[in-house]
């Protein structure tokens, strides 16, 4: 009995020791890896699940994606915890650039936003071609609207659209405007649960499994286009940045093969991302 | 167990000892000497300080006043003394495990542990209960085990605090027999009891305590035949000493 107890104790200690070592060795492994800070909407769209194996094949680089809100992603890059940042908030990206956190911004692709709402459509905006009219109608009706409220690219785009609609959202918002401080999926969940309006990127919407009574009500307005930019974190700011691998990643994205791969990504037969690395205005 | 003549802690001398706990004076100006020989029995009402005196004689308590010496030494590690508490704590092991622990703590050689454990179990009548978890022994069995643990230390002086308090008459007799046989091997027994009958049966010397002070002490024969003090007379007559 005693020896059995001793044996099992040694076994446990050995197993745990092995586990600790394997965990530690993960950290020490010297693969070709980079850390890319990107957004939850991009992750939720499934683009990375599709693209990362392709990148590994083409460049041999293992890409580790940290998916956060745009604000948090840029913050992670500022702290030097990422090598590359890929987000969709042009004004924030330019601020990042001018602060010297990166040396160059490359446009990559765009997707679009859609205005989602309940089938019952209390604000009566279904089929409208202009996003500003839709938002004005929602404000007038005081219909429940879910905002991500997390400084993400989507959130900043949403705020911009309210401005375009001439609605001072800080003034006008009442309890019908709910800022949840979370990602796109959570916002869609909240909208689904409370039959509310929400602005979402098309990619996440198509991928979303919990649609409930929600439908796409307004789409196609060019003001709903969502531009992505990719930047290498400045190696001058942070000496630990893997600049060669990071640049290789960027070079792939903007290369003809990379752009073609991006355009080939489909969910339910719909193309989600439109490559535009060569567009000087992007 | 061998006969002890040399290397003991006797005499144990209390010199105006005072012990205070939580602001209350438990022992007050106690001066006593414990010499080798027949058992010394402490008697007195509950709360008179018997337990405290035993613990102090064992060397477990800090003194507020006075001093205690063991064979002339003031500081003495309890290597040759052992105590059996009134409410013994059982280690979370088997009965035999408890005794083995006490033996090992007293420096017994590994090769000897089995043999001496069996010896001690048999001595206190627990030979059939060696494998049982000690905490599942009855009150009386636990007290006997506690005695075995104390004896495991091969003491020259053995303190017993109410050793038969929770035992039935048969078990009481068994323990008293053990005490007599221990005493016969020249181990000094100092025990506390509130059972006057037991005191009469076992004592060579008696100390009567009341409210932390020694009322009377001396040979048991003389004490029981002709107590000198008022309190002693009243106590022996069965009155409550307040």
């Amino acid at each position: 009995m005693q020896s059995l107890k001793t044996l099992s104790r040694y076994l446990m200690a050995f197993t745990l020791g092995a586990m600790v070592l394997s965990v530690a060795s993960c950290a020490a492994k010297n693969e070709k890896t980079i850390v890319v800070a990107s957004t939850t909407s991009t992750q939720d769209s499934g683009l990375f699940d599709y693209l990362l194996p392709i990148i590994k094949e083409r460049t041999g680089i293992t890409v580790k994606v940290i998916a956060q809100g745009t604000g948090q992603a840029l913050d992670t890059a500022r702290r030097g915890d990422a090598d590359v940042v890929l987000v969709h908030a042009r004004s924030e990206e330019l601020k990042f650039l001018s602060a010297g956190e990166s040396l160059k911004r490359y446009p990559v692709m765009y997707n679009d936003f859609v205005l989602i709402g309940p089938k019952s459509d209390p604000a009566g905006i279904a089929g409208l071609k202009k996003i500003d009219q839709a938002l004005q109608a929602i404000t007038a009706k005081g219909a429940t609207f879910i905002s991500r409220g997390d400084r993400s690219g989507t959130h900043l785009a949403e705020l911009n659209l309210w401005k375009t609609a001439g609605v001072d959202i800080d003034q006008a918002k009442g309890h019908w405007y709910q800022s949840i401080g979370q990602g796109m999926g959570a916002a869609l969940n909240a909208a689904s649960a409370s039959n509310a309006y929400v602005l979402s990127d098309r990619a996440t919407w198509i991928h979303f499994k919990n649609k409930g009574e929600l439908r796409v009500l307004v789409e196609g307005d060019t003001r709903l286009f969502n531009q992505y930019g990719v930047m290498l974190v400045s190696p001058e700011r942070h000496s630990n940045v893997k600049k060669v691998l990071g640049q290789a990643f960027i070079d792939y994205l903007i290369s003809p093969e990379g752009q073609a791969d991006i355009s080939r990504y489909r969910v339910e037969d719909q193309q989600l991302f439109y490559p535009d690395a060569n567009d000087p205005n992007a | 167990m061998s006969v002890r003549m040399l290397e003991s802690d006797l005499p144990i001398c209390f010199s105006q000892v005072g012990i205070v706990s939580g602001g209350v004076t438990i022992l007050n100006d106690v001066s006593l000497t414990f010499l080798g020989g027949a058992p010394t029995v402490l008697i007195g009402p509950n709360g008179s300080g018997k337990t405290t005196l035993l613990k102090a004689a064992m060397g477990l308590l800090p003194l507020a006043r006075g001093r205690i010496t063991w064979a002339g030494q003031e500081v003495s590690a309890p290597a040759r003394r052992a105590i059996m508490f009134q409410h013994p704590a059982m280690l979370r092991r088997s009965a035999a495990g408890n005794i083995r622990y006490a033996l090992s703590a007293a420096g017994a050689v590994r090769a000897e542990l089995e043999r001496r454990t069996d010896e001690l179990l048999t001595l206190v009548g627990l030979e059939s209960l060696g494998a049982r978890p000690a905490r599942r022994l009855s009150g009386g069995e636990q007290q006997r085990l506690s005695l075995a643990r104390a004896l495991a230390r091969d003491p020259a002086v053995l303190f017993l605090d109410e050793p038969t308090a929770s035992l039935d008459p048969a078990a009481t007799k068994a323990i008293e027999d053990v005490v007599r046989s221990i005493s016969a091997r020249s181990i000094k027994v100092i025990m506390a009891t509130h059972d006057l009958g037991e005191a009469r049966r076992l004592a060579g010397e008696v100390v009567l305590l009341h409210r932390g002070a020694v009322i009377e002490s001396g040979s048991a024969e003389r004490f029981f035949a002709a107590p000198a003090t008022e309190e002693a007379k009243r106590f022996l007559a069965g009155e409550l000493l307040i």
Partner: protein
Amino acid sequence: MQENVSALQLVLTGDPALFAIVRLSLTVSLSATFIAALIGVPLGSLIALTRFRGREPVIVVLNALMGLPPVVAGLAVYLMLSRSGPLGRWGLLFTPLAMVVAQTVLVTPIIAALTRQTIEDLWLEYRDELAAMNVGPLRRVRTLIWDARFSLLTALLAGFGRAAAEVGAIIIVGGNIQGFTRTMTTSIALETSKGNLPLAIGLGIVLVSIVILVSALAWGARRAAERFAG
């Protein structure tokens, strides 16, 4: 991991991606609990058995830290391990090791506080006897820990349960990177936010099963204690 396949199918067919996630979760939480025990048991015993100035406040703080919010622990470790932080040069952020560190921070107070309580209670019981047997301080500690081993095991299981169930700390320091730092709890958070509820529920069932298993082990430990040691 395929998403149109039902979660139950994944569990039953032993989908390798799911398996990898479960293995990572267990590795991280077990390692953290192990290290937390190495620190917490001696620490708790020390506090239980020694008298020092400020002992009471230390015990109060230690007990309070049992309820340390995981996100707070995660944030603190994140700030330490970030490249801009004091330990940045080790480059540990967004690795499983960072997750182990964060969970160790969470679990150590639990084990230390429960150890302290257990050892102190047992010490009160054993003190006179051990003193009477002239047992030295080092041996006292070993005896107390050994005799209390089943209660201490329960403390370890409580710590493990806490680690296995939390998401706030590891999602901040680990980054929930697919294939590297994605665990059961972070996967559930992710799949839920994607609206992929069947998969999230499937993972949840696996996680709860593990928690129940841990609870059963704790119960078994108590029963073993009763049988072997009374």
